[in-house]
């Protein structure tokens, strides 16, 4: 995707967003389905996608809404899952054009997702507001459209297709965590520790009272803290991890 001589125009942003948009269509379709199967109306599912624009956070938050979770639980779970965006926005703040105004920053930061961030950081040199706007718009459209289609199609789709689509979000997560795990031992350790802890919390009866939101928080904090103590990142590694 890195083409040094091509100027970072709005149109190039829109184009670079197409692969992300396609990935989002399938996952947001599954999200829309999950929301309406849980009893939420179509417009709420689309509203969540258009106001949140995040995969893991809104899946977890919506699952908690459906199961009648407390506001504080919804807030803390969503926040912990989204802490990673602080790191991404921080890296991005070093990468954007100094001329980017505050209103532009306020608007564009809404569109920082794992995938949009990764593509933005691959560009040569500083990035401007026009390019970033284009890069956000295509996936945003895909995320909203996929949610609507999934939410509206729930009643029409055969059960066999619906149960199969339940795995789509986890497939996307695996697509995000596996490739860096094969290249970085600290990330592999983080992923394995978090997975093992999470399985323990789910299968050992002693922890039966904990909701899935708190389990994610405890496992993620413990695994990341352990990895941070054992493998503090250096500057170069930090860039690799972020990309």
């Amino acid at each position: 995707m890195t083409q040094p001589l091509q100027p970072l125009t709005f149109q190039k942003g829109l184009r670079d967003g197409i692969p992300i948009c396609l990935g989002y269509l399938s996952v947001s379709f599954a999200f829309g389905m999950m929301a309406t199967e849980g009893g939420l109306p179509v417009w709420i599912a689309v509203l969540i996608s258009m106001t949140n624009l995040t995969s893991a956070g809104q899946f977890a938050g919506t699952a908690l809404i459906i199961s009648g979770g407390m506001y504080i639980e919804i807030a803390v779970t969503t926040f912990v899952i989204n802490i990673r965006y602080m790191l991404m926005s921080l890296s991005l703040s070093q990468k954007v054009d100094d001329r980017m105004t505050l209103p532009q920053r306020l608007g564009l930061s809404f569109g920082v997702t794992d995938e949009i961030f990764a593509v933005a950081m691959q560009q040569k040199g500083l990035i401007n507001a026009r390019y970033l706007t284009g890069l956000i718009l295509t996936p945003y459209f895909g995320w909203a459209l996929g949610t609507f289609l999934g939410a509206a199609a729930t009643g029409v789709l055969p059960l066999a297709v619906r149960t199969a689509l339940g795995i789509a979000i986890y497939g996307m997560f695996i697509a995000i965590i596996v490739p860096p795990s094969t290249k970085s031992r600290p990330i592999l350790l983080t992923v394995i520790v978090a997975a093992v802890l999470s399985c323990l919390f789910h299968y050992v009866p002693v922890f039966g009272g904990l909701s899935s939101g708190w389990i994610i928080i405890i496992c993620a904090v413990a695994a990341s803290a352990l990895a941070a103590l054992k493998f503090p990142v250096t500057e170069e590694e930090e860039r690799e991890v972020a990309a």
Partner: protein
Amino acid sequence: MNYPKILIAVAVMAVVTYLPRMLPLAVFRKKINNRFVKSFLAYVPFAVLSAMTFPEILASTACLWSALAGLITALILAYFNRGLLTVALGSVGVVFLTETILRCCGIL
């Protein structure tokens, strides 16, 4: 359906999703220097996604066997660096096939 409660919850989600994205880009324009905090933040995304995936993925389909087939498919495709769409739809496809076969055999 309790719409006020749901809409407040959606607003809460939107705010706690927006703040971590907005604050560093708009307000803090300096770099974090604490090495532990930086390292912790670097590992958090992977830890969160891993804790969300395991063991939930095994309960995400109609039965354990189709979920296992989908999980293995996703791991293999991701290991060979396939994109989001390929990994997600690849695992969905294998789950669908597995469940169709299991239904035909009368197991599911």
